[in-house]
């Protein structure tokens, strides 16, 4: 990569120097031809020329190439394909009739890289802040001596603080290789502000010795500065590591919790060993998929809000399925918890196959809406993906919902009473059958919400539920059956523990260790984390 990039830059800088201020000529046909060449080197050179030239038409060409909208017609003409028609690549004029035989030019990663660099060099002078920011970041990561003629003026004129500091880092990176020790010291000090592992690696090379045992960096002062900076970065990285492990742990925990909350009602409170719980998650996820499809077909302008619409739909769909299950099967089995295991196992098979028949055996695509894609870059390059952040928030929301329902409403009290003593609940006037249906419906609906959330991070397919059922039961049971606080603690605990162990031992061993931990933990707390104490427990 580095070689071709350097080559590109050299060409580019040459071009910049010659054409600065010169007229905005249209790209030559020769350059255009090279853009469509088979050889990547040739194409990259052409890209560099276009980028350096910087005319509107050149930029449009580069953009088109990046979007794979630059196409070659059957007779060897380059055209830009747009949503509305085709434009001539050289002139930018519309072409009639539309060239049906136009075949878009493919690009590979190397060409894509070249395009980005070419654009960054142009964009650093853009007026839009975020464009400049992105360009600065790109330039920082590929900074080299050759870029100095761009970086230095940019740094000098840049007003924005954040962009300035990025550019300063980029300059420091280059200066680290400067011949003047003073510049090197300054650069080494400057780079201490970074929290980038690659900067650390770069600084660390100053401390290496060559084969003869001589320091590569002759100046002791530079070495000292580098050492101090390495340590500073290391400290920051260690912090970042800790923070990111905590975040990933919480994020996993919130997913476990969302997967388990519905079960905490259907099983934890109602005592139905609900093996079809995973399939209720699946119903929620497919509901999300269907809503997405409807939005794409009928409300394409609002596609990004489909998730919001999917939340209630997922709840209702799963609740409806759950109520149907309760009315037809489960209600005959209260007081026979182990039979519910068998019947719900059967139900789960039926639901899986139903999904397979309706939606096919393959996974379906559920895309994150734009506002849930990507992530926020925080401290030390930790990216907190939006979908994970949203899911953590959503978990809290659902948790609150469940808590309010179980603890703060009469319905919750009735549900608890019915499961503790169904006959007697009837004898104080609770319509037990209706309460059961309602409660199971709500539990199922909560599972549907879980499924909606899961669709944003994981597979949506007929068998998706099977992957969650074991974990869900572990969470509910580990927390102590019927204990909401227990389920939360268990989910977060398992999430954090998995992530800590995973960092240390790898995913497979981590999973094994977590399971072993569960086995051992239950020895200490045979009724789960938040075991109910009291004399009635034994009876």
């Amino acid at each position, binding site marked *: 990569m580095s070689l071709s990039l350097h080559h590109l830059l050299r060409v580019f800088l040459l071009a910049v120097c010659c054409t600065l201020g010169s007229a905005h000529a249209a790209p030559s046909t020769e350059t255009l031809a090279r853009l469509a060449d088979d050889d990547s080197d040739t194409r990259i050179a052409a890209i560099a020329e276009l980028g350096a030239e910087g005319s509107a038409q050149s930029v449009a060409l580069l953009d088109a190439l990046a979007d794979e909208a630059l196409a070659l017609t059957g007779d060897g003409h380059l055209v830009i394909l747009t949503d509305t028609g085709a434009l001539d690549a050289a002139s930018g004029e519309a072409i009639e009739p539309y060239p049906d035989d136009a075949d878009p030019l493919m690009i590979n990663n190397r060409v894509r890289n070249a395009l980005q660099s070419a654009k960054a060099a142009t964009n650093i002078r853009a007026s839009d802040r975020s464009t400049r920011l992105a360009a600065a970041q790109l330039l920082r990561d590929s900074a080299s001596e050759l870029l100095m003629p761009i970086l230095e003026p940019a740094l000098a004129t840049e007003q924005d603080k954040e962009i300035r500091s990025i550019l300063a880092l980029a300059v420091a990176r280059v200066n680290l290789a400067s011949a003047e020790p003073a510049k090197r010291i300054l650069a080494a000090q400057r780079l201490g502000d970074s929290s980038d592992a690659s900067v650390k690696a770069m600084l660390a090379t100053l401390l290496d010795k060559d084969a003869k045992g001589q320091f590569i960096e002759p100046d002791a002062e530079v070495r000292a500065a580098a050492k101090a900076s390495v340590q500073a970065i290391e400290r920051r990285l260690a912090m970042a590591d800790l923070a990111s492990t905590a975040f990933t742990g919480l994020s996993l925990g919130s997913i476990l919790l969302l997967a388990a909350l519905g079960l905490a009602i259907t099983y934890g409170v109602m005592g139905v060993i609900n093996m079809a719980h995973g399939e209720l998650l699946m119903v929620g996820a497919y509901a999300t998929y269907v809503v997405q499809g409807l939005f794409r077909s009928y409300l394409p302008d609002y596609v990004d809000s489909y998730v919001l619409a999917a939340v209630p739909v997922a709840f209702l769909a799963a609740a409806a399925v759950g109520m149907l299950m309760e009315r037809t099967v489960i209600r*005959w089995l209260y007081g026979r918890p182990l039979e519910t295991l068998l019947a719900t196992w*059967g139900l789960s098979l039926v639901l899986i196959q139903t999904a397979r028949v309706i939606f096919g055996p393959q996974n379906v695509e559920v895309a994150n809406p734009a506002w849930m894609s990507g992530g926020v870059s925080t401290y030390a390059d930790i990216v907190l993906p939006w979908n994970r952040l949203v899911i953590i928030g959503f978990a809290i929301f659902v948790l609150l919902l469940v808590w309010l329902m179980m603890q703060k409403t009469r319905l919750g009290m009735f549900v608890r009473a019915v499961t503790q003593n169904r006959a007697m609940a009837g004898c104080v006037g609770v319509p037990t059958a209706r309460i059961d249906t309602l409660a199971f419906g709500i539990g199922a609906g909560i599972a549907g919400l879980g499924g909606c959330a899961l669709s944003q991070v994981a597979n949506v397919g007929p068998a998706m539920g099977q992957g969650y059922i074991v974990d869900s039961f*572990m969470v509910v049971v580990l927390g102590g059956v019927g204990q909401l606080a227990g389920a939360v603690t268990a989910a977060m605990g398992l999430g954090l523990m998995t992530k800590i162990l995973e960092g240390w031992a790898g995913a497979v061993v981590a999973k094994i260790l977590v399971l072993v931990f569960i086995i051992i933990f239950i020895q200490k707390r045979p009724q789960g984390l938040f075991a109910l104490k009291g004399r009635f427990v034994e009876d």
Partner: protein
Amino acid sequence: MRTPLSVRLFQSLPRTGWLALAIFAAIAWIAIPAAHLLLPEGHALYVSAYTVTLMGKILCYAVVAVAMDLIWGYAGILSLGHGVFFALGGYAFGMYLMRGIGTDGSYGVALPDFMVFLDWKELPWFWVGSDSFLWALIMVVAVPGLLAFVFGWFAFRSRIKGVYFSIITQALTYATMLLFFRNETGFGGNNGFTDFKRILGYDITSPQMRLVLFGLSAALLIAVLILGRYLVTSKFGRVLAAIRDAESRVRFIGYQPTQYKLAIWTLSAVLCALAGALYVPQVGIINPSEMSPANSIEIAVWVAVGGRGTLIGGVIGAFIVNLAKSFFTVSFPDYWLFFLGFLFIGVTLFLPDGVVGLWRKLRGRRPAATETATPTPAATPQGAKA
């Protein structure tokens, strides 16, 4: 005057029970071998190798189901991890079978193939002795037995009950499955063991060997049924049932439930292991998916379908479910899950005591276990009268 044990063993089964076992034995040991070996292919009564292995496999499953019923039906302990004992028994015997391949493998060396291409230079220590049939038999019993004993000892001592116990058994089998998936563990990763050639020098694919394995499976099932029947009709069985219904009360009259549970738990595990050991040479492969949680749940499903707390119910359930699976997966490959799912739902709704319960109802005999208790109408489904 004390009745000798043999007589009590005999008395533990009703006359019809013995008759049924005798008929079963005659079919398994005489009729099927004869039909397989003597009749020509295409004869109406010919029993194909496919049928023999299929039946042999289901016989092994039936043993597992009976073992499961012993702990679930009679001691109220629902294990969602019995697959692990079954699989460990299978692996223990599978190691012997792997060694039996000798130099006939792809690489023509004494090491099992998977070790060669995963760069193992020599057998790891836990494979020592695996070429001995006797040692293999010992391991088949000892390894799962010991695991069950240690696991049970800790769990029962901590008074882990109900779903808490079920869940940790599930964790156990899941963890073991992941462990066996790893190639480093030394059991062939997810490919497991397969391509077996011989047992005690005899060709494993010969009809005779097939029949011997089949006959042994039948013998094991018969023995397990008699033993199980003896256990549940003995005082031991009554204490177990008492523990199932009111464990703390049992303690107050002076029994140590821990020991009783541990005994039946370990026994059940060992029976599973024996079944696993017979299963592997018949189906020709053992790999970690046998330890997947779903497989273990299915064992409980067999028992529930047949009828819990009846022993024979496990056998019937294992046969019904597995034959149904074999049949439906061929006849309705796209829809068989519907059939199976509705079968399970139907059985629970309409046959609360499984197929055996139905049988008893038809014969007008109400089993003690259902006429029972729960005088509180908690057990009567709400709306049953509506």
